[in-house]
């Protein structure tokens, strides 16, 4: 049996009085890619942001239930939110590199977490992270140019490099390819597949083929509820729920 990295139990999420997530329970498995699909506005992003408590900063958010990361409740009292976010990294929908150099973008995380002894160790982390994000060859000559001078796809890979530089255990990706062209998208998909051996990945996507290509597990959200969850092959070829069938065949 697979080893769950994150266990979500009876999660309810409210924005003020408006309930966005209804009683969600699922296990996210170690070193697997889990895709979350569903029509827009169904709460995929909200769910993803619960996993590293990015929702905390939004005014009037209330969370019920528990999310266990390696058995520790991330909403528990002893959990340090800042450290949690170092363990559970995030890549956003729109590439958002800092308006700093490429090098500083990647080095920022290791710097604030003190992950290196000396300059050459930091250089090593930066190179390794860019390498893993498949960007090293393209940027090694221009590490000190602004990160914003890269193309959209390169910027998104830079954001991935920035996220993996702090050696997280889980990487959350919220529609990472929605702002990219097909070639850049293909590169990121390839990258996600490679990253799986080190990290646990949760990816939100509205692109069904993408979910089928990159993920091992898939969850279908509908109106704030988790309708169906299982191995990607099973869900795509043999959906049990009517709503899933409808969504997969585009009859919704």
């Amino acid at each position, binding site marked *: 049996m697979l080893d769950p990295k994150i266990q979500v139990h009876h999660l309810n999420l409210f924005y003020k009085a408006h309930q966005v997530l209804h009683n969600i329970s699922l296990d996210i498995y170690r070193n697997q890619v889990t895709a979350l699909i569903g029509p827009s506005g169904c709460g995929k992003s909200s769910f993803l942001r619960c996993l590293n408590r990015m929702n905390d900063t939004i*005014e009037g958010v209330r969370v019920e239930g528990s999310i266990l990361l390696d058995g520790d409740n991330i909403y528990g009292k002893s959990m340090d939110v800042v450290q949690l*976010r170092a363990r559970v990294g*995030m890549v956003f929908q729109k590439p*958002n590199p*800092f*308006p700093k150099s490429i090098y500083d973008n990647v080095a920022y*995380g290791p710097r604030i977490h003190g992950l290196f002894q000396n300059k050459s160790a930091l250089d090593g982390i930066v190179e390794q992270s860019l390498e893993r994000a498949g960007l090293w060859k393209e940027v090694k000559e221009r590490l000190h140019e602004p990160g914003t001078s890269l193309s959209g796809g390169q910027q998104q890979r830079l954001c991935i490099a920035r996220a993996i530089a702090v050696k997280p255990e889980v990487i959350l990706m919220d529609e990472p390819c929605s702002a990219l062209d097909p070639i850049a998208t293909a590169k990121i998909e390839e990258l996600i597949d490679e990253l799986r051996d080190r990290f646990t990945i949760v990816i939100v996507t509205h692109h069904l083929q993408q979910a089928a290509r990159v993920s091992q597990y898939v969850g279908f959200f509908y109106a704030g509820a988790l309708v169906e969850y299982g191995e990607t092959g099973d869900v795509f070829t043999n959906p049990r729920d009517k709503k899933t069938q409808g969504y997969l065949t585009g009859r919704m």
Partner: protein
Amino acid sequence: MTKPGLSPTSVFRPKPLEISPRLLKRRKLGNAIFLLCGKASVIFSCALLLGILGSIVYWSIPAFLSVELKLVVPVSKLLKLSPNPLKERTFLLKESLSTTYPTYEDPSQKREIQSLYSLLAQKELRGLFKDKEILKESSDTLVLWAPAQKDVAAFLKHCQKTSDVKNNKAFRLTEFQCQLLEKLQKEGSVRFRFNWGFFKFSDSQTPELAGIYGALIGSLYVLGIALLFSLPVGVITAIYLEEFATDSRLSRWIEINLNNLAAVPSVVFGLLGLSVFLNFFKLPRSSSLVGGLTLGLMLLPIMIVSSRIALRSVPASIRDAARGIGASSVQVVFHHVVPLAFPGILTGSIIGIARAMGESASLLMVGMMAFITTKPQGILSPATVLPVEIYQWVERPERGFDELSSAAILFLLCILGALNWFALFLKHKFEKRW
């Protein structure tokens, strides 16, 4: 007949849109009228601005000119006549005048000639005789260009050709003096120089000795204190309110009041300064400390509001990015948000400075209208600032202060223009960086 749906003649062809010519004409007329009105208002406002600026420049030109009259100093004769010429007050000037104007013997004429020269002439002469080295090297006479008295200066600046009685009266000169001046001018014994004194002197009763130096230094003191007080407090408040305070009823109430405060007329802050700093803390009246703190109070809401706008303009995606890799709130703010908002904060501050620089009403309220003939000696000693100086000069009846005040206004305008230009420059420079 085939089915209507398949018949080629029944294929839907939209009729081209026909606009009635009357509607078209009306629309075009409307456009033309608006464009005409727009151009007319632009021209009107430009003309108004240019008119104001032009008149200020025109009125201030005389203030930048100083009039000097030739004075021949019989050095060796003076040294022979009196071993210590500095002892007697008017001795030097009188002797020099009789050498320069040997043909006028009459004592009343002599008196009138003497009154053509400014009091400064005596001072300069005495200065000359203090410096023994120069005297030794020079021959037995020496030409000194001495500043003219204010009425003479005004007469020569404004109506150099005419010397009719009407003008004499207006300039408070006698007919003899006018004729003499005209003669001097023909001889080339009158010259115009750039009035450096305007930038070197402080306030004075005599316009040819009055300048903006003291007021400028006073303004710098006051602004410095205002900034030292309002910039850190304002920026820290803005950062806290914008980035850390939760959106509660209290914080919304504070926000509304800050916005209102930023629009409160400055006199109100003057009143506040009066009651707090003067009456309660008993700080000295007219000091740059009190003025600076009062302006600081006025600047504080402006600083807070403009800093908040700058902070708010930093995109949320940057905050998310930093938070997403585990930066704490304080790190997010000080590593990312504040550096990105910094140019905006700076721009806001500079515009605030420009506003404080031109502020007079609130400073008058805290008594910054003393007559001060030096630059301020410290933050507790009396000081005056540029706008108040202008206000005082405008009120003085003596001839010469009117043009001085125009010149000071021009100078102030130049500084304000430079500040605003600098703010724009910073904004553009940093916006382009990434």
